[in-house]
């Protein structure tokens, strides 16, 4: 995994992401709305940094992305948290340090966190792994810390 990658926060992406959550508040799309001006320009929904997946070079959950080489194997520890098939996203946590605005360029770094195992309710081992992703803006200011917990199961989850 590279040390990090750039994630430009584009106004159109913010609008598209907000729409996908059914969110029409003006702070996510209209720079001229008084509400947007009151928060210093377009801001982003609480889970918006997930969109960094589009810019993550080795993002595993986009197997049809055009690439020069083969798609990366899924390791269950990327910012997406879950995985193909038996992998699932168990938990997601965010800490918001500074607002992210459209026009910012975030620098994204991810490191592994804790790993632990648990016996599943229907038998089979559950393997949990954390990954911690930090989003820093163009001034080097830490804006968001995201902790994703993925779980790999030995069989399909039929909850």
């Amino acid at each position, binding site marked *: 995994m590279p040390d990090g990658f750039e994630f430009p926060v584009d106004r159109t*992406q913010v609008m*598209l*992401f907000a*729409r*996908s*959550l*059914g*969110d029409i*508040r003006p*702070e*996510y799309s209209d720079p001229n709305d008084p509400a947007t001006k009151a*928060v210093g320009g377009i*801001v982003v*929904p*609480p*889970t918006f940094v*997930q*969109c*960094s*997946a*589009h810019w993550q070079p080795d*993002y595993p*959950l*986009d*197997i*049809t*992305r055009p690439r020069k080489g083969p798609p990366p194997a899924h390791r269950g520890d990327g910012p*997406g*948290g*879950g*995985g*193909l*098939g*038996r992998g*699932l*996203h*168990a*938990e*997601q*946590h*965010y*800490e*918001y340090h500074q*607002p992210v605005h459209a026009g910012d360029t975030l620098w994204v770094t991810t490191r592994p966190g804790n790993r632990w195992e648990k016996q599943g309710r229907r038998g089979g081992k559950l393997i949990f792994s954390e990954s911690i992703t930090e989003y820093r803006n163009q001034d080097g200011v830490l804006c968001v810390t995201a*902790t994703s917990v993925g779980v790999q199961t030995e*069989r*399909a*989850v*039929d*909850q």
Partner: protein
Amino acid sequence: MTLKAGDTHEAVVVENIQRTHIVKYAGASGDFNPLHHDDTLANKLGGYPTVFAHGMLSMGLTGRMLTDWLGPTALKKFGVRFTKQVWPGDTLTAKAEVTEVKGGLATIKVVTVNQDGESVVEGEAIAAV
């Protein structure tokens, strides 16, 4: 916004969620895991009866309930566990309850339930108030 322990808020965040909702989230977020848009692969890869929504879509919808209530810049922390899958046709209601207010920060218990009252997302948020 003035909040006190015991205050509650809730909102229906999606009614009768469609595959189109899920696909729109996939396109916006970049998460193209086929479990969320390809019924055939959802069955073959994971043994699931159909596709199901991204956990992050449920979390995002839950976040919308919070920002509609508290504004888009109030959250300091927001974390959830994904407790049940969301299937096409589900209707989700996101609920919040303030458990403590101290030093200008409100701790808010969050749960989102489906039409059968089963929780799909459970967690906590901290908001500046």
